C-alpha cells in the first residue's frame, strides 16, 4: 500500500499551434507524497497540470486515477476525483466571506430548504480552517485576508471538495504558491503541507529549488516538454538539478555569439536610466545601454526586472528617477511618450498586448507608421504601405500566406516576428524584449535570435528579459541580476567568455 499510485500519466502528448508542449511525458503521484515538479518556463509544467485538472485535453496518452483510466474534461470532474489546483492567481471571490467561498456552488451538500444554513456552514468551515492552520473567523470577507491566508482558504476548499466526493487521498496541485508569500508565510505553508501529507498528496511547483528540496519527497524534472529526470530528494544535488533544468553546455553557436557586437567604451550611450525607483517594486537603479548592445535583466519573478521595463515604457509610472535618451533628458508618462521618443516594447503576453489577432498581417506591421504613409490628402498610400510591409516580411522571414491573412491563424514564432517588424518599421532606438521566445518552439527561437542580433547590428539598444538564463547569457553583452527589487550583480558576457547559469543563479536566490 505504501507506494500506491494515485495519479498515473503515461505517454502524454500535447501540442499548441506551432509548439509541441508535451512529448511522451510520464508523471506519477503516489499516496501521501509530495512531488516537486521543476523545469524552466515553457518546459510544460503548467500544461501538464492543466491536463490533470481538465482545463486542457491531451492529444494522446493514458491517465489513470486511483488505478482507473479516466477522462477528466473539466475542473469539476477533477474535483470529484479528488484533484484540485491552487492557481498562481487567486480563484476566490473577493467580496464573499471565507465560508461562502469554501462552499461556493456546493451549498446543496447541506440539507436546507430555502435559506442557507449559515450556522452549519460556519461550523464546518471552522473545522476545515483548523486543518490548514488559519485562525481567521469564517465570516471574514476574503479581501481582508493576506495572500497567504487566502491560499489557506483555497486549500480548505480543495479539501472540502474531495471530502464531499469521498475521495480517500486527494491530490493538491500547488502552482508556484510561494512567489506571492513572505518568508514566514512560506514556512507556514510548508508546515501545513507536511501536515496534509498524512491524508493527501501534493504536487509542488516552484522555481525556487531550495524550497523544492526542502518540501518534496521526489522531484520530477521537465525540459522542453520532455521528462529529463525523476529523483528521490536524497538522490540528487541542487547543482545537478540546475544543470538538468537549464540544459547542458550551450551549443556553440545557438545564440549566434559571433554576431555579438562588443560595446566599446567609446560607443554612444543610447539610453541612460538614472536612479529610477518604484516603491514596493524596485529600489533606485541606474544603468545605461550603448548602441548595438543587448542588456539582459535576470532575476526570479517578483525581483523587479519586469517592473523596470514597464516603467521605462511608461506602462506603469515610476516614483522617481530620470531617463536620458542620447544624452537628452526625457519625461515618460505613458507608452505614447515612450513610442514618440523611439522606445519600443515587445510584451510577454503576445496575444493580448502585442497584436490585433483579428486584423491582417499588413495592418499589424504598419500600425505605427501610418502617419508617415499619408499623402497630401491625408489618405494612406496603399502601394507604399504594401511595399513597406512586404520588405519587412522578407527581411524578417515572416512566413505568411499573404499580407492579408489574419494574424490569429499564424504560428507563434511568426506572430512574434510581426511584432518585431512593427517596431522595426517605426525605427525605434531602444527595444525592450519581454520574454521574446515564450511559447515558441526551438526552430522559431533560433529565427528570433537571428532577428535580435540583426536589430542590434542595426544600432538598436536592446533590453532583454528571457525565459531562460541560457538564452539571456547567450544573447546579452551584459546581465544585471536582481533580487527583491535590488540589483545584486552586473555580469559581463563577452564573446567567448560567457558565464555559466550557475554563476548567476547564485545572485538570484
Amino acid at each position, binding site marked *: 500500500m505504501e507506494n500506491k499510485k494515485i495519479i498515473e500519466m503515461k505517454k502524454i*502528448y500535447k*501540442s499548441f*499551434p*506551432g509548439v*509541441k508542449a508535451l512529448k511522451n511525458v510520464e508523471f506519477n503521484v503516489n499516496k501521501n507524497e509530495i512531488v516537486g515538479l521543476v523545469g524552466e518556463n515553457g518546459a510544460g509544467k503548467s500544461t501538464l497540470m492543466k491536463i490533470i485538472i481538465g482545463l486542457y485535453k491531451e*492529444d*494522446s496518452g493514458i491517465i489513470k486515477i486511483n488505478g482507473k483510466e479516466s477522462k477528466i474534461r473539466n475542473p469539476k470532474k477533477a474535483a470529484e476525483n479528488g484533484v484540485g489546483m491552487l492557481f498562481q492567481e487567486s480563484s476566490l471571490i473577493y467580496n464573499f466571506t471565507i465560508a461562502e467561498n469554501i462552499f461556493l456552488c456546493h451549498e446543496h451538500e447541506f440539507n436546507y430548504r430555502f435559506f442557507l444554513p449559515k450556522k452549519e456552514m460556519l461550523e464546518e468551515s471552522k473545522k476545515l480552517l483548523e486543518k490548514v492552520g488559519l485562525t481567521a473567523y469564517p465570516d471574514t470577507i476574503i479581501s481582508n485576508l493576506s495572500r497567504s491566508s487566502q491560499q489557506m482558504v483555497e486549500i480548505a476548499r480543495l479539501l472540502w471538495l474531495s471530502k464531499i466526493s469521498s475521495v480517500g487521498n486527494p491530490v493538491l496541485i500547488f502552482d508556484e504558491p510561494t512567489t506571492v508569500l513572505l518568508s514566514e508565510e512560506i514556512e507556514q505553508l510548508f508546515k501545513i503541507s507536511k501536515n496534509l501529507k498524512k491524508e493527501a498528496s501534493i504536487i509542488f511547483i516552484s522555481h525556487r529549488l531550495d524550497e523544492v528540496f526542502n518540501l518534496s519527497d521526489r522531484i520530477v524534472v521537465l525540459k522542453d516538454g520532455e521528462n529529463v529526470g525523476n529523483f528521490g530528494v536524497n538522490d540528487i544535488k541542487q547543482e545537478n538539478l540546475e544543470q538538468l533544468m537549464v540544459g547542458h553546455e550551450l551549443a556553440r553557436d545557438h545564440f549566434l555569439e559571433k554576431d555579438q557586437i562588443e560595446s566599446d567604451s567609446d560607443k554612444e550611450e543610447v539610453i541612460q536610466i538614472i536612479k529610477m525607483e518604484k516603491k514596493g517594486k524596485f529600489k533606485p537603479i541606474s544603468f545605461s545601454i550603448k548602441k548595438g548592445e543587448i542588456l539582459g535583466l535576470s532575476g526570479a519573478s517578483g525581483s523587479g526586472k519586469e517592473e523596470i521595463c514597464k516603467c521605462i*515604457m511608461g*506602462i506603469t509610472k515610476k516614483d522617481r528617477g530620470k531617463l536620458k535618451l542620447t544624452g537628452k533628458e526625457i519625461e515618460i508618462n*505613458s*507608452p*505614447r*511618450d*515612450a*513610442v*514618440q521618443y523611439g522606445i519600443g*516594447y515587445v*510584451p510577454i503576453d503576445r496575444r*493580448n*498586448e*502585442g*497584436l*490585433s*489577432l*483579428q*486584423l*491582417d498581417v499588413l*495592418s499589424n506591421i504598419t*500600425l*505605427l507608421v*501610418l*502617419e508617415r504613409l*499619408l499623402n497630401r490628402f*491625408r*489618405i*494612406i498610400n*496603399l502601394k507604399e504601405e504594401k511595399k513597406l510591409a512586404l520588405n519587412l516580411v522578407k527581411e524578417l522571414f515572416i512566413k505568411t*500566406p499573404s499580407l*492579408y*491573412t*489574419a494574424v*490569429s*491563424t*499564424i*504560428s507563434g514564432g511568426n506572430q512574434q516576428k510581426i511584432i518585431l517588424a*512593427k517596431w522595426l518599421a517605426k525605427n525605434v532606438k531602444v527595444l525592450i524584449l519581454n520574454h521574446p521566445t515564450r511559447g515558441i518552439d526551438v526552430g522559431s527561437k533560433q529565427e528570433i535570435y537571428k532577428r535580435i542580433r540583426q536589430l542590434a547590428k542595426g544600432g538598436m539598444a536592446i533590453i532583454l528579459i528571457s525565459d531562460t538564463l541560457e538564452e539571456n547569457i547567450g544573447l546579452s553583452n551584459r546581465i544585471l541580476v536582481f533580487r527583491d527589487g535590488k540589483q545584486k550583480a552586473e555580469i559581463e558576457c563577452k564573446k567567448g567568455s560567457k558565464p555559466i547559469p550557475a554563476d548567476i543563479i547564485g545572485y538570484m536566490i
Partner: protein
Amino acid sequence: MKKEEKNQRKKESYSFKKLPIIYLPIILLFVIILVFYIGNQSFLSLYNLKTIGNTASIILSVSLGQFFVLLIGSIDLSVGGIMSLVSVVYLITLGKFGIFGFPITLIIAGLAGLVNGIIYTKFKIPSFITTLATGGIFVSITYLISKAPIAASFSIMKYLEIINGSILNINGSLIIVTLLAFLYFIIQKYSYLGRILFSIGSNEKMSWMSGIDLDKMKIYAFILSGLGSGISGIILASNLYSGSAILGEFYVLESIAAVVVGGTALSGGCGSVLNTIVGALLMSVIKNGMTVIGINVYAQQAFLGVIIIGAVAITLDRGKVIVVK
C-alpha cells in the same frame, strides 16, 4: 509512431479563414427582395423604390455613424436624441440663416458627438451610460427649444426641396447619403483614423501600449456618429416638414440593428461601411416590403424581430469573435 507524427503534422497546418464575408448579407438582401417581388410585383415599381430609397437614406446615415462607434466596441444610444435636436435646430436655423442652416445644424450635431466622446473618454464612463444620459439631455434641450413640434414655414420650403426633390429620378436624400457613405468609406478604408479605430476595436490594450492616442481617436468616432445622426435628422425633418423631440426615438435601436445585421460584431474590431450599407438596406427593404405584400401591421414588429435574429445568425462572422455578449 508514424501515425502519431502524421497527426502532429496535421495539427500544425493552419486553416485559413477568408477575410470579411460581405457576400452573405448581400445574398440575403437579394433573396428578400426576390421574395417581396414575388409577393407583390409593384414592390419594384419606381415609386416604391423611391420610397425605399428615402427610408434607407435615413437609416443608413445614422447607421454609418453608429458603425464607427461599434467598431471600437462602444455604443452610441444618443443618436435618437441628436436626430430630434437636429430636426428642430435645422428648421429654425433654416428660417433664420437660410442656406447656412445646413452647416450650422451639422456643426451642432458634430458638437453633440464631441460631448459624448469627451464624457466617455475623459471621465471614463462607459459609453452605454454616457450616451444613455446625453441622449436624454439632447431630448430635453429639444423640448426647451420648442415644447410642441414645429412645422416648416413656407419660406424654407425651397431648402427642404433640395432634399425631398429628385434629380434624374434619384432622391436628393439618397444623393446626400451616398456622398456621406463614400466619405465614410474613405475614412474607414484609407485614412489613418479608420485604421486606428480598427486597431482599438480589436485590441485596445495593444493599441495603448503601442502609443496610440486612444482618447482622441475615440472622440473622433463619436463625432462621426454625431454627424451621421445629424444628416439623418435633417432628412427626416425635411420629409416630415416638421421637427420634434420624439422624432429620433426609434432610430437608436434600428441603427444598431442595421450595423449588426450587416455583419459587424458589437465587440468591435470588424465590419465595414459596405457591410453597414447592406445592413441598412436590408432593414429598410424588409420594413417596406412587409407593408407592400400586406403583412398585418401589428405582426410586422414580430416579423422584423425574427428576420433580424435570423440575419445576424447567418451574417455575423463568428470566426473572429471570441466572446459574444
